[in-house]
């Protein structure tokens, strides 16, 4: 099998223990030509110092302040691999995942993104079927697709063609956090590439069993949902979707007795200027078929 260089890119911000564990697991990945890039978002807990000492093979890029997901773009721009594996700071690919990802890309030139089956690091091995051991044999037809709709991908585990990612302008830095994968997915699909989930390409993620009580998740998910609509949907769909989202903001603000959704909605309108020059509606077919579960924004808080 051809083994082109693959770049693993992740970012971090004050999550030293999780990141170091992920980097140790990445060392176990069975693939001969791998580079690992970590972009540190100005951590103050000693993360960059520890990476420099403990993981000399890692290309560490340090930001002077927390710039959110824009740090990924720095990593993407510095990547030299033909393919990029995108990870969270607390996720890592299963041992064979990169090799399988490359095989899928090499087999299908129209495959833009290999979306990993992202599983819970603490529990997945307890609940998975042994008959589906990652031998590759059980996964002849492994694309987890749907006939009538399209899917985006999960940034805790996804492979993408580097050149394609560059062509679509990387992640939308104005989003800062959340829904960035969906925005990128719109543009990848609009270029005629496919995004497929594969059951035999697994990544592990340290899924937190607690509420996201911080304001960040509900705020950025909600604000960016508006921006996702305005950037990507044709006018005929953008209008009703916007009105529906406004209604949801009021509904869930009342249901959960919080102002955070209304603040996020106001922030979306007030800061709409940040999207200047960035709206490019996708084809109606993609807009209609890409499955975006907007209601996710309202399910983290209480």
């Amino acid at each position: 099998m051809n083994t082109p260089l693959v770049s693993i890119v992740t970012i971090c911000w004050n999550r030293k223990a999780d990141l170091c564990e992920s980097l140790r697991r990445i060392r176990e990945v069975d693939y001969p030509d791998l580079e690992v890039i970590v972009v540190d978002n100005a951590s103050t807990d000693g993360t960059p110092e520890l990476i420099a000492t403990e993981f000399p093979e890692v290309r560490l890029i340090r930001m002077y302040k927390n710039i959110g997901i824009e740090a990924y773009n720095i990593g993407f721009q510095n990547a030299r691999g033909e393919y990029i594996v995108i990870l969270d700071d607390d996720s890592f690919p299963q041992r064979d995942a990169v090799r399988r990802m490359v095989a899928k890309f090499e087999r299908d030139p129209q495959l833009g993104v290999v979306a990993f089956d992202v599983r819970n690091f603490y529990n997945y091995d307890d609940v998975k079927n042994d008959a589906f051991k990652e031998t590759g044999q059980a996964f002849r037809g492994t694309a987890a697709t749907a006939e009538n709709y399209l899917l985006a991908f999960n940034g805790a585990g996804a492979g993408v063609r580097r050149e394609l990612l560059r062509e679509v302008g990387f992640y939308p830095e104005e989003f800062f956090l959340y829904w960035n994968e969906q925005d990128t997915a719109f543009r990848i699909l609009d270029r005629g590439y496919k995004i497929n989930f594969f059951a035999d390409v697994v990544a592990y993620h340290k899924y937190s069993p607690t509420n996201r009580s911080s304001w960040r998740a509900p705020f950025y998910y909600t604000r960016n949902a508006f921006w996702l609509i305005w950037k990507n949907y044709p006018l005929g769909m953008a209008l009703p979707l916007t009105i529906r989202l406004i209604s949801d903001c009021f509904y869930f603000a009342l249901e959960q007795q919080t102002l955070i959704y209304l603040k996020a909605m106001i922030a979306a309108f007030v800061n709409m200027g940040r999207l200047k020059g960035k709206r490019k509606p996708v084809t109606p077919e993609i807009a209609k078929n890409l499955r975006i579960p907007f209601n996710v924004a309202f399910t983290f808080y209480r």
Partner: protein
Amino acid sequence: MKELLIIRSVSFQQLDRNLVAILERYPEHRISILTHEHGVLLAQKYKGIGHVYVYPYKEGFKFKNKVPAFQDKNFDVVIVPVTNITGAGFFNVLLFSLSLKAAQRVLCNVRSEFKELSGFSLLSLGLKNLGIAVLSYLCTAFLALFVILFLPFKLRKIEKKGES
């Protein structure tokens, strides 16, 4: 054997965790799962799952969206996993669970804590949410006027130049 259905309303990452607790709490049950089409292959990877049913719609779970496979099916327990502590934001899934014939409906939260939901508690939650919906529609109607008038103009202003 008793029949248990999980409605997959959360990510597989969370379900990996919830499933351990479900298997422990309901050892005498045959467990099935209902998932969107793209989740079928991923759900089949569980050793504890007997049957994977397909929810044949692109959108989220809704009361009006019937699953043909459940027409003559009775479940002893239907479980609705939620991504938070209280189940806020998941009323549509709870309502959907009412469209299934089940003796017991149980909410399983992000910490894998279980809470049985009676028909009465769902009804009172439904009435409360109906009031909220009416209020939110009124607020939205007011804002919608401005959105319809100004959004098309604003969207044109942020359009990428030189693109069709």
